């Protein structure tokens, strides 16, 4: 084989060498999601010389992404993440093939997209796509490197790869069923330390390289967790038996017909949304109780009468919400909607329930444009 100075440090690395580099060059990796996890994972996999890399993301770059999505620059706000990432990665390494897919991963396209790759990286930011991806990779017996983050903490695992004893596990072995939407807010809602996805995404790239080269012990049947606040790290063993309550499609045709939005509780009851203008008309009404469902320490503080009951504490405090009309507010309108869907099932029909669309952000824009 002809050597390439680009990879000279890999050639010299014991356990890797020219043979390992050749294996990487003959391999392919699909990355789902070009966000906080996907950006660093892509950079290192492209730099390492994986022969073919697929990128899937439908989103556009936003200013609030730049604190952690380090492939993107301020001038690229509004552009397609997939297209900008692909262009930069081709400059980093023009010797490999990069496939761009500007689309949502769905049950209609997942099988065809995933089949053609050796390893898949889950760099997504929502449960519906995580369960979809886990089930699809299980049915296709495709190695899946899972990464997920919350505030200062990360999770990492390798699914569908047999350990020495021939045992394989999936995300369903950890969490057989998705949490309710109240349980697991995303980065937009609770914030995330910018370097956290940098660490977890880079570790996902590391696991993919280990799998493809055949070096070291990948995290098969183990869940690694890291907390950056106290540098606490744990590796938990995942048991091989799938819990009975797990319910998922067991064939590719059942997978294509499966509704992951419904499965993950995204399609909940309808809660009336009110506009900032409507809000200004009714917020002083005696019958209206405004409930701020953000956490107690979140800013800005509200300048009008309200009670603060964080989403996680709603069920403990139903008694505090005893007025004819409840008006839920949060920063963006996302948590107030989820809180409304939750409360709708708890309160009777004698109370009206609505939430502020666009949240306090939209209200502030209307008051002082």
């Amino acid at each position: 084989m002809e050597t390439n100075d680009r990879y000279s440090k890999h050639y010299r690395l014991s356990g890797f060498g020219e043979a390992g580099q050749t294996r990487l060059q003959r391999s392919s990796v699909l990355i789902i999601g070009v966000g906080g996890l996907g950006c660093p994972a892509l950079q290192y996999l492209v730099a390492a010389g994986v022969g073919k890399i697929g990128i899937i993301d439908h989103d556009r770059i936003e200013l609030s992404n730049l604190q952690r999505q380090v492939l993107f620059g301020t001038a690229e706000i509004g552009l397609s993440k997939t297209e900008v990432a692909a262009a930069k990665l081709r400059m980093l390494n023009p010797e490999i093939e990069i496939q761009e897919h500007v689309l949502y991963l769905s049950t209609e396209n997942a099988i065809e997209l995933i089949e053609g790759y050796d390893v898949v990286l889950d760099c997504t930011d929502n449960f519906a796509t995580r369960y979809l991806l886990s089930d699809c990779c299980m049915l296709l017996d495709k190695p899946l490197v899972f990464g997920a983050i919350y505030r200062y903490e990360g999770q990492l695992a390798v699914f569908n790869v047999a350990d020495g004893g021939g045992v394989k596990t999936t995300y369903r072995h950890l969490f057989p069923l998705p949490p309710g939407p109240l349980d697991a807010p995303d980065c937009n809602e609770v914030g995330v330390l910018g370097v956290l996805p940098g660490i977890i995404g880079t570790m996902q790239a590391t696991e993919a390289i280990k799998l493809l080269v055949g070096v070291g012990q990948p995290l098969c049947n183990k869940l690694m967790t890291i907390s950056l606040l106290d540098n606490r790290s744990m590796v938990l063993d995942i048991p091989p038996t799938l819990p009975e309550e797990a319910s998922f499609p067991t064939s590719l045709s059942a997978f294509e017909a499966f509704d992951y939005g419904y499965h993950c509780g995204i399609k909940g009851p309808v809660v009336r949304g009110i506009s900032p203008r409507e809000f200004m008309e009714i917020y002083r009404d005696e019958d209206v109780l405004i409930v701020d469902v953000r956490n107690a320490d979140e800013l800005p503080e509200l300048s009008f009468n309200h009670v603060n009951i964080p989403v996680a504490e709603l069920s403990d405090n139903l008694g505090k919400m005893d007025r004819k009309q409840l008006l839920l507010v949060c920063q963006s309108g996302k948590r107030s909607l989820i809180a409304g869907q939750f409360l709708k099932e708890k309160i009777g029909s004698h109370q009206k329930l609505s939430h502020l669309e666009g949240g306090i952000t939209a209200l502030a824009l209307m008051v002082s444009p």
Partner: protein
Amino acid sequence: MKVKILTFGSLTEVLEREFYAEAPDTSRLVALLTSKHAALDGRKFLIAINDTIVKENTMFKANDVVALMPPYSGG
């Protein structure tokens, strides 16, 4: 049985990050915590005893370290 509990992710908003609890097994530990904190009702989280995830109800031994970990969705 007195065991040490470690909590993660969004569970730290309801429970302390680290505390001790008195319970004979995992089912009764969850029931005890849920009775004290209604916000835990219906929450999905995995339970690991001394770094091994358990799915069935499991008896505790003295000095067990029990991790309660919810799924994270961020990426």
